[in-house]
């Protein structure tokens, strides 16, 4: 069902994770430069945001019916159209 047109939501979240973290990293460096929170103090925010993205992805994926414990099992193989 999911392959109709656009990617499922959890894949969008997965695709967005990297860029968002990069933007956040840049932002934290900027804050550091501006004299706010220094990066040595603020870096765990990256971990927290990454964790949140992963949880969100999991939530959406399980809702979309992706087996949370699926390994490399081919899920949709041979599905007639």
């Amino acid at each position, binding site marked *: 069902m*999911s*392959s109709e*047109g*656009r*990617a499922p939501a*959890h*894949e969008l979240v*997965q695709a967005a994770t990297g860029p968002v973290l990069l933007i956040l990293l840049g932002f934290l460096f900027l804050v550091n430069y501006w004299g706010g929170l220094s990066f*040595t*103090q*603020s*870096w*765990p*925010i*990256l*971990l*927290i*945001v*990454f*964790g*949140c993205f*992963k*949880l969100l*992805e*999991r939530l959406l*994926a*399980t809702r979309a019916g*992706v*087996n*949370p*414990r*699926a*390994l*490399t*099992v*081919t*899920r*949709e*193989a*041979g*599905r007639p*159209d």
Partner: protein
Amino acid sequence: MESEEHGAHSPEEAAPVAYCRECGKPLAQESDIVVHEEAPHCAECVASFERQQEPVGADHGEGWRQGAVTEEAFNPRPFSEPINSDAPNPVLALLLGLIPGVGAVYNGQYAKAVVHVLLLGGLLGAMINSYDGPHVTSVFLLVLMFFYMPIEAFRTAQTMRKGEAVDEFSGLVEKGTAPSLTLGVALISAGVIFLLHTLEIISLGEVQRYWPVILIAIGVRMLVKRARSDEGEMQYAFEGAGPARGVSGPLGVADDLGQGPERGSGEAQ
């Protein structure tokens, strides 16, 4: 997926709707497309995937459970007939994996190699820079890394050998699966603890005294997993105890170590 839509725009004259992700064969009609791991494939390729997956996959019918364990099930794909003979050698990958980053480079996964080296460098840095000697936690994580890296390299090489596509961050992100709950929870709690530490609200020294909680958590997780696998897919019976197990938790990776045929069949009995 885009090409499917694209085909609709172009004139009717036999422009392929999509191309097989595996062999590149043009697929003339929508009905030729077989979706496999979210990508269009031709029927032949998917059929060959299924043949590969058959003995290893979790989806065995009744026959599997009732002891119909043939010799083939124990040795589904001997290395002597690799589908992709150019693929890296799993054993060599395992050995090279002991050197930070080298295992991943050997598998051609350069970005992952960088991540491994950075992680390890960070851990070493944390160890060296701490005032009161190396923290137990950083030593623990360091040891975990040295279990994780070779095992991961081994598994990647094995997958490549089976002729399956492996993307750059495989192992860090598993395609077609939801990320594990543990991964998210571990990341967030680590982040919160470190943030509280860097903001000097609590000190890591205090938190560190509670490090055995990690062991307890891993133990509980193993128990839950095995209890579950009794009802469900049976994959976790022979997963080794000890540090290597822990890796699979926070990094969400080695979980399917138990995927191998011996483990699977052993559990089925």
